[in-house]
């Protein structure tokens, strides 16, 4: 069951989706600003929902699937809002807010009726590590959405069949820059997150967990996204090919977040 703040954030995300979608259909500056405001409101309420939960478990939500997914959604919203303000581009908002609404509704089904028992205390460095890694995943999820929109827009441009949405979507150049910004944020967060995780593990066990499948896959994620950033500047790959690489890379993130966490790792098995 979601708490009151979660319901409120779901309602605000849904309202922001309606406004973003409406703006996509019929541009209106004030409605666009309202959409941003509603999104910011949803993020704020979501923060308080996470805070309430964290106070119950005495740590950031990572140990159960619901808490982890909720943190992921919140960081996705934060990253998107940052990019929207930085690039002054709202037309992707409809996709991101829809993703958040679906995600939060799904969370409503997954949410346990009681707050789970607190996991073993790991300290602030561990919390920092988990938060940054989740942030990296949500930034990669955002770049995935942006890359899909890029591929769609590119395909319409090539087919010469421009529909209504075509004229409203951001330009290819803007999508490309937003996607790279998002990946850059994700890589920075992941690099710092992994480093802090290594430091924490070394303090605890006196060794680095190089052999853990989660670490291996995470390093693979770092490699594929760095490769994307490099390829996206080359003659042969810049444009739709790079967007495709970025979209495919997200499969590795999903694999890491689901199968690796659930079945392969011993060190990172939380839920």
């Amino acid at each position, binding site marked *: 069951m979601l708490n009151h703040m979660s319901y409120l954030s779901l309602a605000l995300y849904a309202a922001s989706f309606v406004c973003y979608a409406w703006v996509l259909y*019929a541009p209106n500056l004030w409605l666009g600003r309202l959409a941003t405001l509603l999104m910011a409101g949803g993020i704020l309420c979501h923060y308080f929902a996470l805070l309430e939960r964290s106070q119950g478990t005495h740590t950031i939500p990572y140990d159960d699937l619901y808490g982890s997914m909720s943190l992921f959604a919140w960081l996705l919203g934060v990253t998107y809002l940052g990019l929207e303000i930085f690039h002054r581009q709202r037309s992707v908002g409809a996709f991101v807010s829809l993703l958040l609404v679906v995600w939060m509704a799904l969370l409503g089904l997954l949410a346990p009726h009681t707050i789970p028992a607190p996991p073993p205390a790991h300290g602030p460095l561990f919390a920092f590590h988990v938060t940054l890694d989740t942030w990296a995943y949500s930034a990669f999820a955002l770049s995935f959405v942006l890359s899909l929109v890029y591929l769609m827009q590119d395909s319409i441009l090539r087919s010469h069949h421009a529909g209504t949405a075509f004229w409203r979507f951001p330009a290819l150049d803007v999508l490309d820059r937003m996607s790279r910004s998002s990946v850059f944020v994700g890589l920075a967060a992941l690099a710092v997150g992994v480093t802090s995780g290594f430091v924490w593990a070394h303090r605890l066990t006196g060794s680095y967990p190089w052999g853990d499948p989660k670490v291996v896959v995470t390093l693979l994620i770092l490699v594929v996204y760095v490769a994307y950033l490099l390829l996206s500047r*080359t*003659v042969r790959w810049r444009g739709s090919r790079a967007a495709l690489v970025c979209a495919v890379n997200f499969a590795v993130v999903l694999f890491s977040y689901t199968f690796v966490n659930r079945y392969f790792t011993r060190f990172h098995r939380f839920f």
Partner: protein
Amino acid sequence: MATVSKPRSSSAGAGPVRSGTRIQIALIGCNHRTAPVELRERVAFTAEQALEAARELRRQGILEEVVVLSTCNRSELYGVAVESGSEVTEAMEDFLTSFHKITRAELEGRTYRWVDTDALRHLFRVASGLDSMLLGEAEILGQLRTAYGQALEHGATGPVLNRAFQGALEVGKRVRAETEVGARPMSVALAGVKLAERVFGNLKGHAALIVGAGAVAEQVVEHLRNRGIGNLRVVNRSHDRATELAARMGGEAVAWESLEKVLGAPDIIVTSVANAAPVLTRGMLERALSVRGGRPIFVVDLGVPRNVAPDAAGLYNFYLYNIDDLGEIVEQNKRAREAEIPRAEAIIAEHISKFHSWRAALEAGSIVDDLRGRFREQREALLRERLAEMQNVSPEERERLAAITEELIERVLAEPAQKIRKGGTMRGRLGAIDAVRHLFGLDVPNAKGSGTEDPE
């Protein structure tokens, strides 16, 4: 473009709302659908002529409020009539013919005349761009704003046209904001530029190359210039022609032989060359893309036969649109705009209803005043008549009698006034107002006690 400030009160402009007759907007005009350009140019109004016409129409007592709208596609006179129905549009047409010194026979079947709701609906359709030659074009809204602003400034409008034109400006804005009627490019040149924006986003600072020359290519350049394009180069077989074009377009002329050398620089290429073989081959464009580090190139090929080799279309990060592609997009956009007409009409209907509400409230107020005036006249006549026969009534008693009958009038009027103002639906209220006017003879323009006010 003139800005229009709202009048301070409902009685600003030509004068207060008339009492005694139904408030009616009348319109006469001709447009691109009803009259050829030879006739339209003869009935067009300059800004000065529009003011003079408005002044004359009011001075001659044909109209109380006037706005003259004259563009290259239409000449229209909007007014609030002293007379009603067809009489006023007859008088307006007479005025139009005498003002422009043309015969009525020349205007026969070339004009349209509307009154009341039809006139208002026409005004709102004009503001929305639904009556324009190019469906949904935005320029008309600015022209309407200017025409109204000028009339307002010179006191030619009054409460009715103020309300109608402010409504029209709002309708125009809403239709463009809430529907697709005004969206999407409707010309080949603009479609090309808008497509380039789908690739590069803001075109400010981007480079363009114009190969050859043609009317559409020049239009493309104009749109690019309006968007702050940075570097502009012009290539033509005749270097003199290239220099002339470059000077006119504000660009730099490049020799025909250097075409391939400069091909790597521009983000947007517009070709319009009369040549049997393609001017830009796949090989040339491949090399250009390589020089650019894979950054995309957007090409608008306006040449027939085509100036860009068809096999170049498959190049990576190369977006090619020829004249047929752009024509097809313009057609798609036209269909999309037409599909939006019902939504625009719904907005218009909503604003017509708002106008009717406002008018009904106004008329409800005026009809009670008219009735009061009529009853007072009757009372005074009756008291004069009867008291003349009663010699023994003192002045105090006469005053008392006058006060009692005055109170009686107020009591009699209280209930109908309440019902007309607040009761029932809009249609019902308007019907009740019409019925009262008819029953008490208030719809006769020069009926005793229902005199109209001189606008001057």
